[in-house]
């Protein structure tokens, strides 16, 4: 059974796997232990065209689409979830600019982001919570030819390494989306959050203090910031989180399967023991289900369905894929006994990383709220 991949998508999957296995895998233990951001890998991904898959050719992307993007995220996460997560977070501003920005903004930023020559981040969450963005406190007040921004953002992925950061702030009675370049006076990254997982990825707190943001940095019309941010988070953030979860689960499962085939107890490989077989069966079945649910919204986005119409499908993908990832990465650890705790076997990394996905792109409970509203109304 295939997933209806085109020939190009099949070849892309193979190329992404080859890249992940030959270029990424040898570095995983070291960069994860040190918590280093693998810039060189990002540049290589950019050179291969793996970053700009949902951006059009006109702006340096390939326009291969959402399914292609999910497949690449999945392949990266299968080997190193941090890289998959970097990739999904980095696409947020690229998508927002292409779909809601003006021509000058698109031409100025998207090509370098596609190439991996520049890195971006996107900030919505504040201390008031990410689940209720309307409670945000950051303000953008009109001042001459631009805005003065004050406020703080929390738990922002990639902010520390970003050359350009998109954000949403209250302005003129509504919410507006902007971007700011690294080094802009009044904008600073104030803290790197210690995290259990995604060690190579920085998650930061950042502050705007009397930060002057020119009018040219407004994404879309003033007061329509949420109309840009929410579809972006849904189409890119949530689908991407599902792709990361899916890839990591595959990585953990494959590690456990290999271990069970090689580990001999009672004179035979433990994969011959029914208790272990059942674990492996449950894992592989969960993965298959999560794959279908995660690919579905991407396929529909590629067919031209609107993000708004796919809110429930996307929420289901994120909800299921992350649930599947958490219980199966844990199961992989159980199957491997004490070896499962060893970094060398990587399964402990997958489990740590999946904890981070509980909140990325919206909590699991928010996904249920989205689905719940739709099925009860």
């Amino acid at each position, binding site marked *: 059974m295939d997933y209806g991949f085109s020939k190009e998508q099949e070849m892309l999957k193979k190329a992404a796997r080859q890249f992940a296995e030959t270029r990424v895998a040898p570095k995983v233990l070291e960069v994860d232990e040190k918590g280093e951001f693998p810039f060189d890998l990002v540049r290589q991904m950019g050179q291969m*065209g793996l970053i700009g898959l949902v951006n059009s050719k006109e702006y340096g992307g390939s326009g291969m689409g959402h399914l292609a993007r999910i497949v690449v995220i999945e392949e990266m996460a299968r080997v190193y979830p941090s890289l998959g997560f970097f990739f999904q977070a980095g696409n947020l501003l690229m998508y927002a600019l292409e779909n809601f920005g003006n021509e000058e903004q698109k031409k100025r930023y998207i090509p370098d982001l596609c190439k991996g020559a520049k890195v971006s981040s996107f900030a919505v969450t504040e201390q008031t919570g990410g689940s209720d963005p309307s409670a945000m406190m950051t303000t953008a007040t009109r001042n001459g030819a631009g805005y003065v921004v004050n406020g703080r953002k929390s738990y922002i992925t990639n902010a520390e390494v970003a050359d350009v950061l998109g954000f949403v702030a209250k302005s003129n009675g509504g919410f507006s989306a902007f971007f700011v370049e690294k080094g802009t006076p009044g904008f600073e990254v104030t803290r790197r959050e210690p995290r259990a997982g995604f060690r190579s990825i920085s998650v930061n707190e950042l502050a705007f203090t009397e930060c002057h943001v020119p009018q040219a940095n407004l994404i879309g019309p003033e007061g329509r910031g949420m109309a840009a941010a929410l579809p972006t988070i849904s189409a890119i953030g949530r689908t991407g989180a599902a792709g990361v979860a899916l890839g990591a689960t595959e990585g953990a499962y494959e590690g456990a399967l290999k271990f069970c085939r090689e580990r001999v107890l009672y004179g035979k490989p433990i994969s011959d023991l029914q208790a272990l077989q059942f674990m492996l069966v449950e894992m592989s079945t969960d993965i298959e289900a999560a794959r279908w649910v995660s690919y579905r919204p991407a396929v529909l986005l590629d067919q031209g369905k609107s993000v708004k119409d796919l809110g429930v499908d996307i929420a289901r993908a994120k909800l299921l894929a992350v649930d599947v990832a958490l219980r199966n990465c844990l199961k992989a650890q159980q199957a491997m006994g004490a070896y499962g705790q060893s970094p060398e076997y990587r399964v402990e990394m997958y489990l740590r990383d999946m904890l981070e996905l509980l909140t990325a792109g919206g909590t699991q409970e928010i996904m249920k709220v989205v689905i719940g509203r739709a099925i009860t109304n």
Partner: protein
Amino acid sequence: MDTLVCIKQVPHPDHFGQITLDPLTKAIRREGVPLVMNPVDRNAVEAALQVRERFPGKVTVLTMGPPQSRETLEEALAMGADEAILLCDRAFAGADAYATALTVAAAIKKFCPFSLVLCGSETVDSGTRMVGPMLAEFLDVPYATNVRAMEFTGDVTCLVEADLDNGCMKVDLTLPALITVNKAINEPRIPDVMGIIQVAGKKLSTYRAEDLGLPAEKLGLAGSPTRVAGVWEFKKDRRSEVLQGSPKHVSSDAVARIREWGGL
């Protein structure tokens, strides 16, 4: 400079454990095993692309195999090759190294003018290392095998460094020539997105037995002088035993024990 690269689709080395042998046909059963481009053939494609970067010309990739071999050709096109040729006919089935080389040589003579032919030094599924040299003989060109480096010293000369079991040999080849390369020659590129997108617009020609002008008795199993006398699988087993005593005593004891268990 026009370069031709001969490549082959083989079972994925990571899945060799799934391959079984058919004692009746004496062939390997590949059903369900993923297929990939023979690993060192990637190095041959990369070498050809690097030649094209220095000397303008065309890179053509060629394979002989069943219809699914097309995927391997498309991968080479995605890496950057300009054109591809698939030799596909049931009459080619069961060809040994000799019949393969003869068939490929006939196709090259008919369809592919070349200055250089590149092959991987060996395939992971049969590993005879014979197709390259035989092909050179049929094409009547000089050749070098197991090459780790090559440098063009003039328009028609190439200095190659070939690995031997106990050293290295430098050879000057006059083009046209055939070279089989090993993995030390380069690091093959991975197809990029634009390369993948461009595949659809590239020429991939398929030729059948009748296109080559070779008599049927020269093709496939009928044209193969090699006959497999028998096949068997190695049995993998795990045993452990602690041997004690002096190193000399332990080592001779270990050899005796391994022999006794059928390991030697």
